[in-house]
């Protein structure tokens, strides 16, 4: 049965198994690929652009525009690469796991269509180490796709050929950044690269490369089958499509739901997540993973899409919300996040390498009751010191988002730590 309100997840079973090739084909799988192979690559790029599909990894950049950055280079001797970013490591995010474990062929089909659109001949799925179950699902699915002629030479009888290989990472948050990911694929430390040149000009092994998030690519077959207009109408606010939203923290029903893009934060929290757990009150929320700004009570009616969340000073990010309750210390929560970012910093640029451990250390001293009056000024300084433009990549500015917003909305709690010489929650 088709449930076109939930195109991404409609076929996913709830028994811990993934759709085999046969099962996927039975519900229309790989029809979009066959359709795409009959079209010109530039028409596919236009369709994805018109659909308004934005990068679901967190940055929200137009997918069609990204594909369009690849030059229509007549020199076919230059290999082009296409990479699916399945390195889901944003704290509090668990959406790509669901798609990888439940319907790996949907990702593979989206990836092949993307590779065709940019005329790539080699592709990778870059998977985070901890997703062992997903690793098994993808390995089996790639074999099935090769055997069925959806990968390899002359795909589905066309002139298009593509190789696909799974790379399982060995754990580092930085690998989620696309240029760092490319370094990791080359066997190097996952430090970010200077941009420009963008990967579309000089990516993997110096060749034109496109990197897209898992959820982004899983949308592609549906767009090809049903058209750009259909996709735009799926959302509540015109940005296009559905979104996998999730919730964790002290809520009654933590989980993951595919809903129209632009569903309100209040609906997510109160209806889908079932509201706060008994005995806990809402204090704040990170709307899209650990590197987004806190939102509070007054923001609950925001439509969870890219433009609306940005307008109120945060980011949609991965769309998986992390809820802060009244019995959890906001300073402790930010300390936990900054410790994570300090640990995961690649150390390449000075503000991030030095600033994040400094920040984490100060937050720890506040938690231990050793905070000083000037600490709030130092923390505020850090948020400027590691602001966009001062660092090599987006890691440190992302790390500053929960801190700068916590200083704004929970300033009193920071002051209480200093005045009372202890964490009031301990």
């Amino acid at each position: 049965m088709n449930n076109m309100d939930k195109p991404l997840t409609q076929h996913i079973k709830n028994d811990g198994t993934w759709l085999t090739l046969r099962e996927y084909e039975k519900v229309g799988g790989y029809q979009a690929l066959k359709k795409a192979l009959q079209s010109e690559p530039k028409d596919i790029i236009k369709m994805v652009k018109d659909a308004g599909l934005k990068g679901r990894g967190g940055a929200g950049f137009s997918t069609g525009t990204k594909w369009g950055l690849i030059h229509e280079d007549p020199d076919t001797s230059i290999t082009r690469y296409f990479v699916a970013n399945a390195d889901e490591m944003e704290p509090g995010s668990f959406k790509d796991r669901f798609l990888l474990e439940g319907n790996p062929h949907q990702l593979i089909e989206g990836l092949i269509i993307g590779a065709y659109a940019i005329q790539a001949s080699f592709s990778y799925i870059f998977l985070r180490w901890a997703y062992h179950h997903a690793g098994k699902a993808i390995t089996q699915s790639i074999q099935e796709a090769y055997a069925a002629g959806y990968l390899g030479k002359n795909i589905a009888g066309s002139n298009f050929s593509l190789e696909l290989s799974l790379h399982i990472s060995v754990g580092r948050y930085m690998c989620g950044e696309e240029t760092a990911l490319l370094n990791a694929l080359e066997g190097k430390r996952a430090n970010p690269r200077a941009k420009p040149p963008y990967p579309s000009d000089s990516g993997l092994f110096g060749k034109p490369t496109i990197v897209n998030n898992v959820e982004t690519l899983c949308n592609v077959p549906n767009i090809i089958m049903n058209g750009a207009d259909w996709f735009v109408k799926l959302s509540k606010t015109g940005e296009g499509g559905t979104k996998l939203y999730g919730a964790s923290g002290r809520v009654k029903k933590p989980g993951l739901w595919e809903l129209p893009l632009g569903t309100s934060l209040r609906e997510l929290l109160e209806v889908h997540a079932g509201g706060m757990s008994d005995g806990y009150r809402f204090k704040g929320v990170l709307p899209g993973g650990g590197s987004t700004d806190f939102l509070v009570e007054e923001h609950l009616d925001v439509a969870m899409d890219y433009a609306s969340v940005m307008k109120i000073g945060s980011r949609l990010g991965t769309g998986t919300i992390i809820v802060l309750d009244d019995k959890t210390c906001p300073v402790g929560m930010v300390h936990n996040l900054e410790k994570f970012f300090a640990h995961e910093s690649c150390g390449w640029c000075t503000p991030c390498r030095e600033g994040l451990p400094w920040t984490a250390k100060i937050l720890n001293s506040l938690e231990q009751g050793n905070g000083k009056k000037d600490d709030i000024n130092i923390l505020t300084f850090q948020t400027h010191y590691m602001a966009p433009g001062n660092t090599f990549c987006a890691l440190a500015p992302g790390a500053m988002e929960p801190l700068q917003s916590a200083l704004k909305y929970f300033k009193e709690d920071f002051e209480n730590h200093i005045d009372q010489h202890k964490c009031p929650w301990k």
Partner: protein
Amino acid sequence: MTEKILTTEDIAEIEKLYQHFPIKSAACIEGLKIIQKNHRWVSDQAVKELAELLSMSPAAIDSVATYYNLIFRRPVGRNVILVCDSVSCWIMGCEKILERLKSKLGIAYGETTIEDRFTLLSVSCLGTCDHAPAIMINEDLHRDLTVDKLDEILDSYK
């Protein structure tokens, strides 16, 4: 002369891999993974031998090996416990889980129990935040953990 660590099988596995890449050094991470899979951890001697195999310097190999969280440059036990201490697990009480693990096993982070049964490490977000708190032992994910469940889980790893 130092005894070689890498077996003929290790070398064959690594050589098969780097043919897949346009440059040999691209197989560095894969090579480290193969060594760890077959030897549990990556010793200094293994780094030197991999360097020779991939025509890289040992320092270049080590800069990669020490960069990634899950390449072990020190010996680990038969079972590696990874405790997620990222934000959602922290909110849901991972510190209590960690305390219990430490006291039950008698070790701190980075240490291994006698007879090499368990090594205890922290890990970044395991991506199962709606079932926090969570730990991973070897390749098995244990979710919705409570302190009470730990004993039984640990007993199943020998």
